[in-house]
C-alpha cells in the first residue's frame, strides 16, 4: 500500500488558517467532540468507590447543554485505578462517572447535537471539494479552536511504562520504530516533521484502551508535561494500548 496523500491541503482553507494538519471526518451530521479534566469524584460509593454526576453544561462551560446521543470515555490519571471506571445514567444532558473516590479523570465525549433548524440535509462533501476529495460525508465539530485528536497504538516498555510524546507518536506508528506508519511515513530518525509538536499546556485529555491482550494492571496516565509535550503511561510490561488524546494544538 502506498502513502496516503494529504489532498485536502490543496483545497481546504482551514488547514492553512488553523493549527490542524487534517480534518477528522464523520458519518453523522452535527457530531462534535469535547473533553474535560475533572479533579475528583466527590460522592462515596462505599469503600474506595466514588462517583460524580456531570452535566454537559458543566463540562463545556455552558456551550453544550443537551445532546441527541453520546459516547463517553473516561480515564483515571495520577494513580492506578482501584475500582474499574464506568459510565452510568446517561441522559441527553449528562451522566454519572463511577470510579475511585477523590480521584481525577480525563473525560472525552463524542456527541451528536440535537437537530438544528439551520442544519440542512446536505453533507460536507456536497459543499466542499476538499471533503469530497477525502471521501468525507461529514466532519466533526468543536466548541474550541485548534483542537486536534491524536490517536496511536503504542507498546509499553519492559517496565510497564512509556513516556508518550506527541512529537514521536504523531510521526511514527511504533515507538520502537519496528513498524512504519502507512499514514505518516518516515523511518525513526528521519527529519520529517511531526503533525503535533505539543499541546498548549497540560490540560489535554488522554484515554487508554488495551489492544490484543487482557491486562493485569489497569492502564493509567501519570505525569502530564506542563509544556504540553506529552505524558507518561503506566500498565503491564510490553502491553499494547490504543491512545486517544484531545487537546488544543500549539505547533
Amino acid at each position, binding site marked *: 500500500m502506498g502513502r496516503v496523500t494529504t489532498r485536502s491541503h490543496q483545497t481546504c482553507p482551514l488547514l492553512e488558517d488553523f493549527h*490542524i494538519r487534517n480534518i477528522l471526518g464523520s458519518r453523522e451530521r452535527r457530531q462534535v467532540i469535547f473533553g474535560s479534566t475533572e479533579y475528583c469524584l466527590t460522592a462515596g460509593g462505599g469503600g474506595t468507590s466514588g462517583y460524580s454526576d456531570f452535566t454537559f453544561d458543566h463540562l463545556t462551560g455552558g456551550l453544550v447543554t443537551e445532546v441527541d446521543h453520546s459516547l463517553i470515555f473516561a480515564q483515571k490519571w495520577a494513580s492506578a485505578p482501584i475500582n474499574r*471506571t464506568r459510565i452510568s445514567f446517561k441522559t441527553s444532558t449528562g451522566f454519572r462517572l463511577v470510579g475511585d473516590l477523590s480521584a481525577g479523570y480525563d473525560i472525552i465525549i463524542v456527541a451528536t447535537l440535537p437537530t438544528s433548524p439551520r442544519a440542512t440535509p446536505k453533507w460536507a462533501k456536497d459543499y466542499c471539494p476538499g471533503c469530497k476529495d477525502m471521501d468525507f460525508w461529514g466532519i466533526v465539530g468543536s466548541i474550541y479552536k485548534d483542537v486536534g485528536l491524536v490517536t496511536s497504538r503504542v507498546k509499553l516498555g519492559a517496565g510497564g511504562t512509556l513516556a508518550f510524546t506527541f512529537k514521536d507518536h504523531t510521526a511514527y506508528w511504533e515507538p520502537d520504530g519496528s513498524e512504519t506508519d502507512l499514514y505518516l511515513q518516515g523511518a525513526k530518525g528521519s527529519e520529517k516533521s511531526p503533525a503535533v509538536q505539543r499541546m498548549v499546556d497540560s490540560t489535554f485529555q488522554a484515554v487508554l484502551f488495551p*489492544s490484543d491482550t487482557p491486562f493485569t494492571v489497569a492502564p493509567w496516565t501519570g505525569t502530564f508535561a506542563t509544556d504540553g509535550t506529552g505524558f507518561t503511561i503506566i500498565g503491564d510490561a510490553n502491553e499494547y494500548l490504543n491512545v*486517544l488524546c484531545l487537546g488544543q494544538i500549539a505547533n
Partner: protein
Amino acid sequence: MKDKWVKNICPYAYDQGFDSVIGDVKPGETIFGFTHTMAAAHDHLNFATETAVEQGSSGKGTTGQRTIHQMVDTYYRVFASKVSADGGASEGAGTYEVTKALDGFILYGDNGYTYDIIVIGRVKF
C-alpha cells in the same frame, strides 16, 4: 486568523452550528461510534451491522447518519467504555479489542453489559 472561527470560513460548519472543527493527525480518517451489548464473553462486531441506518427512498440515511461497511485498512484504533446502570459489575480486566479486520473486530468484555465504542481510521464509504 486570530479573530476568525471555522464557521466564518466553512459554510458546512456554519450550517451545522459548529464554531470550529476537530483536527486530526492522519489524513483521510473518519471517526464513528456505536453502542453494543455483549452477547458473550467476546463478540465479533461487524461494522455494517453495528452502524446500520434506515435508508430512505433516495438511498440516503434518514437520520443524518451513514452506514459504515468497511475500512480501507486495519490500522484503525478502537476504544470501548463500559456503560451500565449502577449495580452492574465493574469492568473486568478482560476488556480489550483483538483481531481487527476490514469489516469489524472482536471485542472482549463482560457478557450482558453495554459498551460505548468508537473507531478511528480510514473508511471505505
